[in-house]
């Protein structure tokens, strides 16, 4: 985005910087005019110019900061100011405001990652500490001092000054950082359901906010309850739409509150102008801060979950690559069958065409066979490629028959090379299961190769693998992979699904762990047992797909 990642080197400003500067000038103009439009006694409930300056400083390299410090001067001189404001007071506010901006930007840059996203609770606390509490408080001492010279009450001026600064940084600054400058990074085109939800949320918040803030009296009772009507919508925004949604909700609520207060409506209507402003500030500050915390906590939890999920995916992907590596020799052999057949067929056709008369029917048959072998080779390559690809979880209705066919295609050659026969037993009319095709294939391949490994020392005629698929209950399909090997030693049963536990000399012992992760992420279970007549059986369950998704 604008200014993100720019290096603080002296160079000619880019077009983006010109645009940023233009936006800054316009924004500062309106912010300043709005801030100054309040009488000095009441003062602005938000000191918007602080938001504009801080955002500009955070979004541009420190080498350009001087520009944004100097740029407000003409605006401050040109905008009509309250008649009782003296030039030295204006100069003092300028110096204080600039110092605030520079200090806040420096501290935030130092302690937070750039660009500032307020994604963790720590980020938010640091931000609040510096930009909302510490710097406004310090600046308020200076500002109140200046006011005090103009015969204002020192502490009242301090509070006014502090609240105006603090509020703009709680309510407006995060919204600007997120909405205006971070939008393209976080906001992908949302699916219609989410857009609809956001729309409903906005309408609900606007309605309840309007009702709450324009109610006729501030008496305890029904009206009091109505005053809390927007709260569910605020939490809705925080829980479902994160910091992004919270920023929007808070700005909307602030807008409604200020409008209501200006119109003399609602709970803030029966106070003095200064009292109204203060009540408004307390109201917004105490709404916005906890809401942001909730939103950030939600986002943190979601992100942690997503990261864990991504790690599992990555691990599964690596395991697939390693499995395919194991199968590579056999798969090359598998591919050489159709390739060899195509070659021999083509050679035969050439020779037949040289005969006199050529047997064209035979050539036709040859061409049909070449086409079929080509498709066979493509199918193997497709299967390989889909298993080797990085892959994110995609749950769909998967027919077990098809799944096993695809798996067989990949392991057939490997099993043949190891002299292992594979038998698949499956009742007809089995409903499809809900699962990720690639991951379920991965589990099956893993169990089949494990079974073949287990029979390494058995005589060839005993090397039999059996896959049995059946309904465990009305909603569960159970798949069992049985081998004819020596079976599992009882003391090893408990460790089977633990990381780095392996009974084999090769391999990392991750296969079964990953299989378990995959099965459990499908809501199923995986376990092993020894057969009564020798060998071991690994079983896993998968839920059947909801009827309407059945394919």
């Amino acid at each position, binding site marked *: 985005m604008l200014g993100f990642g720019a290096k603080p080197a002296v160079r000619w400003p880019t077009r983006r910087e010109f645009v940023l500067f233009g936006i800054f000038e316009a924004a500062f103009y309106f912010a300043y005019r709005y801030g100054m439009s309040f009488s000095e006694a009441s003062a602005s409930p938000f000191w918007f110019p602080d938001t504009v300056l801080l955002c500009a400083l955070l979004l541009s390299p420190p080498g350009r900061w001087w520009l944004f410090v100097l740029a407000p001067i003409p605006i401050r001189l040109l905008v009509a100011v309250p008649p009782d404001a003296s030039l030295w007071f204006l100069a003092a506010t300028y110096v204080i405001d600039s110092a605030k901006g520079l200090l806040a930007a420096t501290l935030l840059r130092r302690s937070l990652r750039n660009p500032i996203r307020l994604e963790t609770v720590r980020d938010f606390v640091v931000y609040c500490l510096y930009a909302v509490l510490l710097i406004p408080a310090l600046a308020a001492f200076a500002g109140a001092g200046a006011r005090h010279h103009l015969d204002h009450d020192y502490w009242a001026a301090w509070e006014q000054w502090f609240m105006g600064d603090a509020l703009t940084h709680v309510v407006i600054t995060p919204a600007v950082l997120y909405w205006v400058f971070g939008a393209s990074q976080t906001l992908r085109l949302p699916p219609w359901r989410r857009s609809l939800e956001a729309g409903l949320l906005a309408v609900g918040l606007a309605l309840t906010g309007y009702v709450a803030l324009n109610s006729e009296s501030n008496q305890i009772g029904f009206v009091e309850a109505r005053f809390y009507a927007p709260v569910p919508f605020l939490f809705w925004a925080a829980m479902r739409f994160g910091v992004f949604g919270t920023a929007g909700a808070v700005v909307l609520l602030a807008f409604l509150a200020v409008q209501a207060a200006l119109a003399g409506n609602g709970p803030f209507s029966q106070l003095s102008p200064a009292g109204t402003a203060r009540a408004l500030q307390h109201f917004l500050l105490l709404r916005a801060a906890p809401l942001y915390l909730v939103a950030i906590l939600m986002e943190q939890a979601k992100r942690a979950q997503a990261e864990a999920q991504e790690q599992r995916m990555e691990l599964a992907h690596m395991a697939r690559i390693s499995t395919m590596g194991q199968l590579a020799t056999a798969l090359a*052999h598998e591919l*050489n*069958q159709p*390739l060899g057949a195509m*070659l021999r067929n083509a050679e035969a056709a050439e020779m037949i065409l040289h005969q006199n008369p050529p047997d064209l029917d035979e050539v036709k048959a040859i061409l049909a*066979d070449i086409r079929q*072998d080509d498709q066979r080779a493509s199918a193997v390559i497709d299967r390989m490629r889909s298993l080797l690809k990085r892959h994110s979880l995609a749950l769909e209705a998967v027919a077990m028959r098809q799944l096993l066919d695809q798996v067989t295609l990949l392991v057939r050659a490997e099993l*043949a090379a190891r002299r292992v026969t594979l038998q698949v037993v499956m009742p007809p009319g089995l409903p499809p299961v809900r699962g990720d095709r690639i991951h379920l294939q991965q589990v099956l391949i893993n169990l089949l190769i494990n079974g073949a490994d287990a029979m390494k020392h058995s005589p060839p005629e005993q090397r039999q693998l059996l896959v049995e698929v059946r309904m465990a209950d009305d909603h569960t399909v159970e798949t069992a992979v049985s081998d004819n090997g020596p079976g599992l030693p009882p003391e090893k049963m408990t460790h089977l699904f633990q990381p780095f536990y392996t009974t084999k000399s090769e391999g990392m012992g991750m296969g079964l762990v990953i299989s378990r992760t995959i099965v459990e992420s499908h809501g199923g279970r995986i376990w092993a047992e020894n057969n009564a007549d020798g060998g071991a059986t690994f079983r896993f369950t998968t839920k059947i797909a909801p009827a309407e998704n059945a394919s």
Partner: protein
Amino acid sequence: MTGGAPMIFVVDDNTSFLTAVARMFRAAGFGVKAYSSAREFLVERPTDATGCVVADLQMPDMNGIELQGALAATDNPLPVVFLTGEGDIAATVKAMRQGAEDFLTKLSPKEELLAAVRRALVRDARDRELRTRQHELKNRFARLTSRENEVLAHLLRGQQCKQIAADLGIEERSVQRRRASLMEKLQIQSVVELSALALAAGIAGAEPRPLATETLPGS
């Protein structure tokens, strides 16, 4: 032992490759028979077949090497040309040691495959001639009586009639008579030819000379 014109017996569990390679040999002018497993071939082949076998190395149930072993144990061991999907060094070495005629991948050029098959056919014809001759020689030796065999064993050790007579405790003239009779049955003119003939027929006692001379001092 006449199996008619030489044939190529193709054995491969992969049907599409089996069909294709059989087509190619047929188009090249060979007589071809295709089998989809080693067992099927061993059971259904004509026992007096002539020609060669082109077999896939990797087959379930019974692989190419095992087929070659089984075939070698019969009295009609056709030469085997191996085809494989992927060059497997260990399997290649084993196959060559067992006397594989050739070892090619399924993607080897047609010319190499045809050349290998022609070599195999030549070898089969040569081996067959050798076997036929050996068989015929064995038949000749089989006609000898046990007394003639006794004399033969001593002759093969390089002993003279006098010695043999002494060893067997019979008259020298009887030895000479039996020697003349066995030479007639074996259709040879001189004792010198005898050892060469016995060697060709694979008759026991026809070991190379040094062994035979060693037994001399003791006798």
